[in-house]
């Protein structure tokens, strides 16, 4: 760690881990409910559980991104953070808004807008909070001596993510229009600006971990984010097939969303290529594992499994079934959850000075979590495909088909248990680091000397 103020990142990472573990609890509640065991229904009905599961996911990932921003931007700009007290204020207000939102879901304070269930009044607080976060980052960059491409890509991803939140806050009388703009947030986030954030963080990690020349890495970063927007903006059309808008979205959405996997393939090749070119001398093996797995699993989950149901002819049958949940899990896991775990694995040893970066618990966490998640994806896939055939092709009633697919939720729970063991081990490692210390300043910088060229 170069600067004292980078330690702020730790708070966000810790919050991330806490919310992640809660998210998983709600996943289990829903998986059991799908199997017919809904004993908690009176206190936590399914719609409260699902709002909590999805929003905790978004919030812990955003918290991870914010931590990444606070860790990376001072380093890249070669200066202390603009204001640590304000960053802490931003942290506490972020945590408080998150807690209010989650408690609210349990007393029926939500909006029926998938992924944006947080009620409008809280949206304003979220917006204020994010503005504060961005001001701190931008001020840091402007006072800094250096402005790198990596820092710009990361920061502009965060700025555009904030801007895109706004169309989701407007009230429309027409449900179709509401849905139309909801996708400006959800789709243009995960298949647009979040990929800038992902590209920025991956580039930073690859520069640090492989020692490959920054110019080379940043050139490919531009190509990848270029591909992202080339396909992803018009690719929004794959959510507009069946919501009451003109048919041209079927063609445009079909063509451009089919190109979206290219950007993810780009990330995969980019990371693997840079790793092979690199000097492989960096001792933080766990960070390398998570960085490479992000690049690979995001392509499987978002790219391949996205492609599997993105053509209008297929989507007509799979739209609104568990096939979507199959893709949603592996995509979020591979691209964004693993990314946050990668930056945590990289930065924690530098912030705390503890060299936990190649231990057995860490490796077991990696394999259990990934294998568990792949098992969960397969369970959702089996359930989803069976649902499509029974309900959409053979014309069985919804609930009759659901009773037939209950066994797949048993498999889901087994795989989810494996996954949760992995996550628990990851969190144990996280706790073993303890909190960041000032003695760690300057440590770890010796690896910068390992640059290949």
């Amino acid at each position, binding site marked *: 760690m170069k600067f004292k103020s980078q330690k702020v990142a730790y708070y966000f990472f810790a919050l991330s881990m806490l919310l992640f573990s809660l998210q998983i609890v709600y996943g289990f509640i*829903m998986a059991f*409910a*799908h199997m*017919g065991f809904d004993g908690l*229904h009176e206190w936590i*009905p*399914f*719609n*409260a559980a*699902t*709002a909590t599961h999805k929003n905790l996911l978004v919030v812990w990932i955003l918290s991870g991104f914010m931590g990444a921003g606070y860790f990376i931007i001072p380093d890249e700009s070669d200066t202390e953070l603009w204001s640590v007290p304000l960053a802490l204020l931003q942290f506490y207000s972020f945590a408080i808004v998150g807690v209010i939102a989650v408690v609210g879901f349990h007393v*029926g304070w*939500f*909006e*029926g*807008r*998938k992924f944006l*269930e947080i009620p409008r009044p809280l949206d304003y607080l979220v917006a204020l909070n994010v503005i504060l976060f961005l001001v701190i980052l931008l001020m840091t960059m402007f006072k800094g001596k250096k402005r790198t*491409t990596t820092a710009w890509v990361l920061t502009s991803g965060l700025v555009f993510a904030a801007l895109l939140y706004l169309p989701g806050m407007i009230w429309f*009388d*027409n*449900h*179709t229009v509401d849905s*139309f703009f909801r996708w400006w947030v959800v789709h243009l986030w995960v298949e647009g600006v979040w990929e800038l954030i992902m590209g920025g963080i991956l580039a930073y990690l690859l520069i640090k971990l492989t020692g490959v020349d920054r110019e080379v890495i*940043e*050139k*490919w970063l*531009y*190509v990848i984010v*270029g591909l992202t*927007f*080339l396909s992803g*903006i*018009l690719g929004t059309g794959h959510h*507009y*097939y*069946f*919501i*009451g*808008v*003109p*048919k041209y979205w*079927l063609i445009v959405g079909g063509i451009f969303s089919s190109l979206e996997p290219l950007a993810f393939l780009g990330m995969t090749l980019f990371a693997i290529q840079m790793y092979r070119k690199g000097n492989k001398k960096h001792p933080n093996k766990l960070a390398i594992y998570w960085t490479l797995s992000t690049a690979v699993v995001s392509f499987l989950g978002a790219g391949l499994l996205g492609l599997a149901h993105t053509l209008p002819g297929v989507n*007509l049958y799979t*739209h*609104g*079934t568990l096939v*979507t949940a199959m893709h949603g899990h592996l995509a979020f896991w591979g691209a964004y959850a693993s990314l946050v775990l990668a930056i945590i694995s990289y930065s924690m040893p530098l912030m705390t000075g503890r060299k936990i970066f190649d231990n057995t618990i860490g490796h077991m966490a990696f394999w259990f979590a990934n294998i568990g998640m792949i098992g969960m994806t397969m369970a959702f896939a089996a359930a989803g495909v069976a*649902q499509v055939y029974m*309900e*959409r*092709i*053979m*014309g*069985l009633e*919804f*609930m*009759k088909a*659901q*009773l037939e697919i209950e066994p797949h939720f048993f498999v889901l729970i087994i795989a989810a248990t494996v996954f949760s063991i992995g996550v628990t081990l990851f969190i144990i490692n996280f706790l073993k680091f303890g909190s960041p210390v000032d003695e760690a300043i300057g440590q770890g910088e010796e690896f910068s000397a390992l640059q290949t060229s």
Partner: protein
Amino acid sequence: MLSKKQAKMFFLGGTAVFFLIFIGMTVDTLVNGVPKYTHASQIDDQVRLGRHLWDSNNCMGCHTIMGEGAYYAPELTKVYERRGPEYIKTTFNFPGGWRPNGRNMVEYNFTEQEKEALVAFLKWVGESDLNGFPPKPSVQLDK
């Protein structure tokens, strides 16, 4: 070989072009498409109230509508056509919560007007032109 500058131009240029096309299509969709496809002129106070109730109770947290939502409870786009208004209205205030096939719906406390409003909203949704969604099954084992 591609230089870093060219890569940057590719990124900025491509993004600008596709963003503009997207905005153009959005305007056309909202101005010419949506009013026709969704019979926007039929959105009256009842439909509006229905949508408000749909939203504030997070019905989408269990059901899907237009294929969007959660996968715990049935797709409701065509529920008006499938079940009719009376059936729909009995599900809301069912003592202990409606529990048709072992899955639990929340017990609501809607007034008669609110029930009518939700029915009106679901009827409106069912009449929108959704480009063929939900698909017609090839066989109808349950008919």
